[in-house]
């Protein structure tokens, strides 16, 4: 494919001039460079983040920082454990409340719903994802939290023997409301992924169950849910990742009390919220500690999302009987549900 030896006028019809091939090469290398740029960018950010966290991490040690229970700004002492626990508590609360409801909506839409209302219901669930986080915070703090206060007080009083739930003072910004709003926020994504997997259950699996004389619910129990296990777990993990990283709604709704062992209906703190609240005026060691908190948050979401993708991909390839949707499409389908 060289043109070196052929004079310009004698070029055969099968060859193109170097000039004609330029756009192709330019496009190819240009785009490759772009892709490489993305990699470089992320690596760079990660390195800088670690760099900025250095002072705090070297002062307290990595595990000392992450697992020490004392976040004290005035004393310049930073242990992120209460933040970590607050993050995990609110996120798991969101999972416990949100995932069953999300799976139920997915089951309803794919298996039980009359065809005519399928699209409207789907659109309504998706709309929950369109609401920005700050609006959830606004609605949560001025509408939901006050409305739930009497009920929360009642529960705290009735269950006062339970260590974490009852007893203490019930405040308006509190961990429970935070978890509840987070559940609402992760609902659309868990529902979307669940719907994706449920739609891939082969019809003859469902027919096999029905032809054994199964009721509708029994068919779901035998043929649909076991088939979708991996995918639903993947979707739940993605929701967890989202809940862990959520900043603004949580900051508004959780108060700002970085003390461990708090009440369910009392204030708390999370990694994201502490950064949002304290970064503006922080300096020196404090600021470095906040960067370190950001690093912990980053790594945490990385791990959770990695596990999530493993499950989602396993579902896309796993128990399928007829492999008519090969790799890229299946990933793309799940990816579309995640990214869009």
């Amino acid at each position, binding site marked *: 494919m060289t043109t070196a030896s052929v004079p310009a006028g004698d070029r055969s019809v099968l060859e193109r001039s170097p000039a004609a091939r330029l756009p192709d090469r330019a496009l190819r290398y240009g785009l490759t460079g772009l892709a490489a740029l993305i990699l470089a960018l992320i690596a760079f950010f990660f390195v800088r983040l670690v760099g900025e966290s250095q002072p705090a991490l070297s002062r307290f040690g990595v595990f000392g920082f992450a697992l020490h229970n004392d976040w004290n700004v005035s004393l310049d002492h930073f242990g992120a454990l209460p933040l970590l626990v607050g993050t995990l508590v609110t996120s798991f609360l969101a999972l416990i409340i949100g995932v069953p409801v999300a799976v139920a909506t997915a089951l309803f839409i794919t298996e039980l719903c009359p065809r005519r209302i399928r699209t409207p219901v789907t659109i309504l669930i998706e709309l929950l994802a369109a609401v920005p986080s700050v609006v959830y915070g606004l609605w949560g703090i001025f509408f939901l939290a006050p409305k739930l206060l009497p009920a929360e007080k009642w529960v705290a009083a009735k269950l006062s023997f339970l260590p974490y739930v009852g007893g203490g003072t019930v405040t308006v910004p509190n961990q429970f409301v935070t978890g509840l709003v987070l559940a609402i926020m992760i609902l659309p994504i868990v529902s979307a992924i669940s719907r994706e997997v449920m739609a891939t259950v082969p019809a003859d699996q469902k027919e096999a169950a029905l*032809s*054994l004389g199964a009721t509708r619910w029994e068919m779901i129990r035998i043929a649909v849910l076991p088939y979708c296990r991996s995918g639903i777990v993947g979707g739940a993990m993605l929701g967890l990742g989202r809940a862990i990283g959520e900043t603004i709604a949580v900051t508004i709704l959780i108060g700002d009390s970085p003390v461990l062992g708090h009440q369910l209906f009392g204030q708390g703190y999370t990694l994201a919220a502490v950064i949002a609240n304290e970064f503006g005026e922080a300096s020196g060691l404090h600021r470095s500690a906040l960067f370190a908190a950001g690093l912990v948050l980053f790594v945490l979401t990385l791990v959770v999302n990695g596990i999530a993708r493993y499950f989602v991909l396993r579902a896309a390839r796993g128990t399928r009987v007829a492999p008519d949707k090969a790799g890229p499409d299946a990933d793309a389908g799940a990816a579309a549900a995640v990214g869009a």
Partner: protein
Amino acid sequence: MTADGSSPPRAAAPRGRRRGSGDPAAKTNAAPAASEERPLTKQAHAVRLEKLRAFYGRAEQVKGVDLDFHANQVTAIIGPSGCGKSTLVRCINRMHEEIPDAHAEGRVLLDEVDIYGSEVDVVAVRRAIGMIFQKPNPFPTMSIFDNVAAGLRLSGAGRSDLHEKVESALRGAGLWEEVKDRLAQPGIGLSGGQQQRLCIARSLAVDPEVLLMDEPCSALDPIATLKIEDLIDELKLAVTIVIVTHNMQQAARVADRTAFMLSGELVEVGPTNTIFTNPTDRRTEEYVTGKFG
């Protein structure tokens, strides 16, 4: 169709395999139980279709069929692609209506009870009338044992009962010896033919009256096919069997009676031998001699 072109269909009928008696003429006998010397394991029920019509939306796929399926006999339904035989059979266990916008009209009588009656629970119908599908479909997340037990567990069978019934179903499907040592292994780990017999065991476990088979061997190799055809011969002693097949040789081998469908209508039905050697309708003759299909 031309795959079997080597031996003309007329000669295929007497070449039918083990039928208990070696007498080919015995197959054409009209009285069901008398043609076989083997005693019935269970007296099953007969099915009768009266003016059955099946629709996908507005399109009529099955156009008014009257057909009898005799108790404890194997009835084959043959016909070219798209003639409506699968749709017909799916109306018998009311799976047809699972498809959006599909519905059926007419009567399907299981021993004088119209299963389309307003009082009838469709779940009961499906348990009484089992179905084997074209592609074997054991539940992928379940073991061999659990697959067979699936239907039993729905009706809350007790623990001890379960083992007995699973074993008896697997024996009935001719699979017990092959899997008795690996009941806990996943159902989809078996070969294609074994998977289909597993599905048959699964259906047998709930003790149906009728077994519908929609081209059960079309995804299987010839040896597995033969095994299943032998099995059908045994099964009919306990259940009434309806088998849809595009393979006329198979119909000749396993069926007592054969029905020929064309474009949604029943053209002719009768003892298998008659249909293949001496059909009444010209269209039937053209189909079985391979003039079209």
